[in-house]
């Protein structure tokens, strides 16, 4: 227990978590980039084995990383319960005790107690004792202070004036907030889910984690002029439980659909190799083909068929492949036959009309002469990448976030101030007033405020 109570241990724990998180950013993570993890496995088979044993490619989801976070949360609670921040205000002057005897004891040590306050000042008021006391009290109240713990004795009187006492709780609130956020994260890890559902336009798929079906009736994507940078993509989405429609919305990025806490996000989109039609330019005349439907070229012995679409054409191991599902470099394979006799398939590119690749029977590719025809346009069937997420920790996280903001604002942007005032009857009906003060505000800044306030008080109390 002693170990967990030590702040040093907590700081070391925090440093360890920071260090491990940093390591994780330099290694590909399965959750964000599985392809890179695979690449790493091929590149360094041994290193991969060792690192994978420790879960380094799934670092943030490993039991030991989760354990460290949990330990940290536990530790924060322990630390907060046992350790009070150093608080000079704790040295008591008479007003802070209810026990009569204690008060008398403190009263006799008042000079010493006052000396321990970081800021002190004393003044003589020409007012009589009672009037001075009332006026001093009223002065602090007018300055926005709460006056409490009044104390009267034959030897004199004292009171405590405070401002922004809530500041003290800022630290507690902020730390509780962290724990609440972590609880939210754990609830999410245990009961929440994230499911990717690629849905082809016009089709319906079933969800894995809920007995629901998703239908994308229409998928739209707009591009910035002259680029393949999408400016907007959206899906007309319907969600059904059995035959019953439970939600429908045109979703786009930043605008999800929410059904009882399950949210449907427009996450990505792509082309998967299907298309509705392609258009060829054959020496000036256009020919539109549907996928895998051969067509005769009018006025010639040829027939042509378009069968495969690669949305982001690349060559891998000498074969045609696609680098991604984005429409970055669409290419279509055409099969020509002359009077029923097939010729080698040709790849044509929508973006590069001068390029043509010939495919050998074994699938390898060769550059071919630019043919007298070109690919004009492709109308691909797109799929909408819908991410379904359920996060039962959501209210916890939101509460935690709000508490965090509240706690930090209280802790750092407000300053607690405490003024102790001791009044003793002096000679000739005058009153001696001693002031001690403490503030969470730094020394120099509070010094100015202290001097200003005591100065004002002085002139206030001498005024008859």
């Amino acid at each position, binding site marked *: 227990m002693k170990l967990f109570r030590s702040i040093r241990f907590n700081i070391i724990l925090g440093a360890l978590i920071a260090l491990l998180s940093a390591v994780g950013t330099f290694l590909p993570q399965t959750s964000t980039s599985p392809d890179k993890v695979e690449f790493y496995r091929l590149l360094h088979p041994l290193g991969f084995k060792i690192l994978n044993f420790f879960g380094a490619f799934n670092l943030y989801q490993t039991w030991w990383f989760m354990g460290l976070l949990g330990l940290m949360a536990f530790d924060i609670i322990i630390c907060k319960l046992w350790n009070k921040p*150093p608080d000079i205000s704790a040295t008591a002057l008479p007003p802070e005790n209810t026990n009569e005897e204690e008060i008398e004891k403190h009263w006799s040590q008042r000079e010493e107690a006052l000396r321990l306050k970081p800021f002190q000042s004393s003044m003589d008021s020409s007012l009589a004792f009672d009037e001075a006391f009332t006026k001093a009290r009223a002065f602090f109240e007018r300055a926005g202070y709460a006056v409490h713990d009044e104390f009267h004795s034959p030897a004199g009187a004292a009171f405590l004036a405070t401002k922004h006492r809530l500041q003290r709780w800022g630290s507690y609130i902020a730390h509780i907030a962290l724990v609440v956020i972590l609880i939210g994260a754990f609830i999410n890890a245990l009961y929440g889910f994230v499911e990717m559902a690629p849905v082809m336009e016009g089709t319906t798929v079933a969800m894995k984690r809920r007995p629901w079906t998703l239908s994308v009736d229409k998928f739209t994507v707009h591009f910035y002029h002259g680029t393949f940078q999408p400016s907007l993509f959206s899906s007309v989405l319907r969600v059904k439980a059995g035959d019953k429609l439970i939600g429908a919305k045109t979703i786009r990025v930043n605008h999800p659909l929410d059904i009882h806490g399950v949210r449907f996000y427009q996450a990505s989109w792509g082309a998967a190799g299907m298309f509705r039609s392609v258009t060829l330019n054959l020496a000036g005349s256009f020919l539109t083909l549907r996928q895998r439907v051969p067509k005769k070229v009018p006025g010639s012995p040829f027939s042509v068929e378009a069968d495969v679409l690669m949305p982001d054409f690349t060559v891998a191991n000498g074969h045609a492949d696609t680098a991604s599902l984005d429409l970055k470099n669409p290419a279509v394979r055409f099969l020509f036959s002359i009077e029923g006799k097939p010729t080698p398939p040709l790849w044509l590119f929508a973006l590069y009309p001068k390029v043509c690749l010939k495919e050998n029977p074994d699938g390898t590719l060769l550059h071919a002469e630019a043919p007298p025809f070109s690919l004009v346009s492709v109308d691909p069937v797109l799929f909408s990448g819908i991410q379904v997420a359920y996060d039962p920790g959501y209210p916890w996280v939101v509460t935690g976030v709000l508490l965090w903001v509240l706690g930090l604002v209280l802790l750092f942007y407000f300053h607690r101030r405490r003024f102790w005032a001791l009044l003793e009857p002096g000679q000739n009906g005058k009153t001696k007033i001693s002031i001690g003060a403490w503030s969470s505000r730094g*020394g*120099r800044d509070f*010094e100015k405020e202290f001097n200003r306030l005591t100065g004002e008080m002085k002139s206030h109390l001498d005024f008859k």
Partner: protein
Amino acid sequence: MQIVVAGLSHKTAELALREKFALLARSEVARKIKAAQVSDAVFLSTCNRFEIYACGFSNGADGPDVLLRFFEDLIGKNSSKEDLYLYSGSEAVAHLLKVASGLDSLVVGETEILGQVKESYEWAKNEGLTGKIGNILFQRALYVGKKVRSETGISVGQTSVASVAVELAQSIFGNLSESSVLVLGAGQMAEIMIRHLATQKAPKILISNRTRERAEALARNFKAAVLPWENRGEALQEVDIVLSSTGSPEPVVTKEMVEKSLKNRRGRSLFMVDIAMPRDIEEEIHSLEHVYLYRLEDLEHIVAKNLEGRAAEISKAKEIIESKTGEISEWLKALKEGREVSFKHSSRPKMPRTESARK
């Protein structure tokens, strides 16, 4: 309407003679000035100089001559002419600017003289000694004195061991009005140090000495508190500055004591000055974090450096004085011809911010 200055200073006169002038009562001098029918006059009396500026003489009188006779009058005939200097016209103006800027001082660039000039002028003004020219002349001189100090390095760096120590303390703690000081030893050096600290409003000064009586005597003079000699180790936890100048043959502050106190200081800096011979504070203490130990020779080294630095700035200061002398002479000339001209910058120059914040 000619400006004339006559006076003597540490450069021209022996100490014994200067003392005689320094002892003259102000009101007496003022009375004599009025009696000599000199108007628009200011006199400046410090332990290093005594001089009279004047520009109003009764009709036909020769200003320099009047002032010379006036000096003889003041303390009898026992001052020879070699002890005096006498300038008139723009030379007199240049001399005033030099004095105000601290160029004519024993320690070049010292700031005290500017205050003395200001005070003397204001006193003379209240006495009704000054006139239009004198007023403007002295206000200009005060302005130039500040300008020279803020625009050249002539006043940069303290020139005594005690003031260097105070300045270093300010470089560590900033404003000393929150700092507490522990003085070990109650000898003459301790007293000088405390006097310098007192000007910086250090609120809490603790004096500790092996023989308590001497500490108490010193404490009475400076509103300081006396700390029992055995408690000095514990006091290290609280204080910010330690000044040690005891005659002890053994170190009176050991590394062990300081190390123990550091645990409770929460990282606040501790500045220690050891001006005792043999040393009072163990040298290894300097290697501790947050502790800065300066020995006498370190402070002396800094003083020497500062004096070198000031000397190097003299020519720059002279340039400013030359151009300002020109301006004032122009103005005087115009005044004589009945034209009114005003100075370009009549406002006071801002003092350097960090400096003023420290004061």
